[in-house]
């Protein structure tokens, strides 16, 4: 079957698409930043925090692993304002929902990294007269962080992919712009081909770098 392609409408709207791409990248960067901070805090609190805090944190992490990110996003944008009385603009609602979701995965990575350092090392550090904080900061975390690095890389590519879901609450990021353009230009095939090419060109270098990091760093920090 013959299909004639016409990229004219796409080229004519390059500014519009570039704006969408900028928003995708900004949302991804902010989401990664927020979920690293939040997830790091949750992961540390789960491992070293008071006992009573652990149960609610585990409940939060497991719930986020059980609920689709779309549901968190839609609930946060449409239902949460009815409870809290505060309506966030779509971009900030998406940032909050994505961060809360992805932070749970970050917390799991942090925990796995910390637990991968053998407890004997902490005991040895304590026996040498280090305080608990010193043992964690100078012995456990430096080794754990190296092991977490590749997994944080995967979080980056997962986040970029998940920001596309923000289009559902009308954040004008790249996928949302493509949808608009596909409807207006009557050239959906061209629009979606270009969208696939654009996302691939952003994500492929990230996943390649992560694969290389896994291969390089897997042997480091082994004890």
């Amino acid at each position, binding site marked *: 079957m013959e299909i004639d392609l016409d990229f004219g409408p796409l080229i004519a709207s390059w500014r519009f698409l570039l704006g969408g791409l900028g928003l995708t990248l900004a949302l991804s960067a902010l989401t990664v930043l927020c979920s690293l901070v939040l997830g790091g805090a949750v992961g540390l609190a789960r491992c070293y925090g008071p006992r009573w805090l652990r149960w609610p944190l585990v409940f939060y992490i*497991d719930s986020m*692993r*059980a609920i*689709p990110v*779309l549901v968190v996003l839609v*609930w946060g944008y449409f239902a949460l304002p009815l409870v809290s009385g505060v309506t966030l603009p779509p971009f900030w609602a998406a940032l909050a929902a994505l961060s809360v979701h992805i932070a749970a995965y970050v917390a799991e990575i942090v925990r796995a990294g910390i637990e991968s350092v053998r407890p004997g090392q902490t005991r040895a550090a304590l026996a040498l007269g280090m305080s608990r904080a010193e043992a964690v900061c100078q012995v456990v975390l430096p080794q754990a962080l190296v092991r977490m690095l590749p997994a944080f890389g995967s979080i980056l590519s997962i986040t970029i992919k998940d920001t596309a879901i923000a289009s559902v609450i009308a954040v004008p990021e790249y996928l949302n712009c493509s949808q608009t353009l*596909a409807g207006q230009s009557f050239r959906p095939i061209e629009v979606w081909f270009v969208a696939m090419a654009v996302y*691939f060109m952003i994500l*492929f270098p990230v996943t390649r770098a992560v694969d290389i990091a896994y291969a390089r760093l897997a042997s480091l920090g082994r004890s």
Partner: protein
Amino acid sequence: MTLDWAIVWENAGALARGAEITVLLAVATMLLAIPGGVLLALMRLSPVRPLALASAGFTEFFRNLPLLLVIYAAYYILPLTTGISFSPFATALVALALNVSAYNGETFRAGIQSIRKGQSEAALALGMSRAQVMREVVLPQAARRIAPVLASTWVSLFKDTSLVSVIAVGELAYTAMRIRSQSFRVLEMLTAMAAIYWALGYPQAKLTDWLYRRFGVRE
């Protein structure tokens, strides 16, 4: 603010039907994606270079696209290029199966490659055929490593089926959001949707953790 939870019970049948379609879609996708993944892994590990390259290209392509984009692209491109009109369910099935096959292919390949070469060489030296080596030495061990990863892929897939609500597949998320916009009971319906996903997904996530503990590789 007044809450009217009766709306949830009134629509319990529709929600249950939506959940049924969610489960059905996830099962159908996995049934396609396991053979798909095996095929991709075999191609990737085969000595025939074009096959290996084709498999790598397919895998990298679908691993590096947002699933939502694949769903939209399938929705627009499939009917226009094939000339066949796909139902939303069939479109969703194609998009999800392509995505999950790519992940499964990597899982199977990594599982097979994680068994040290020395074992196959030893088995070959003992006079086993290549097929025997695969069946009796490599696969039984690889299966233990593949099982937990496959379970996490399943949990992700189960959640990802919610994305096909954008092309109007009548699964759980679509059903709940449709009732929300008809009844204006936003908080009740969206909370019910989240609660149902939680109730279905939580045990699956816990079961996956158990599989990792049970079969996890300890070194």
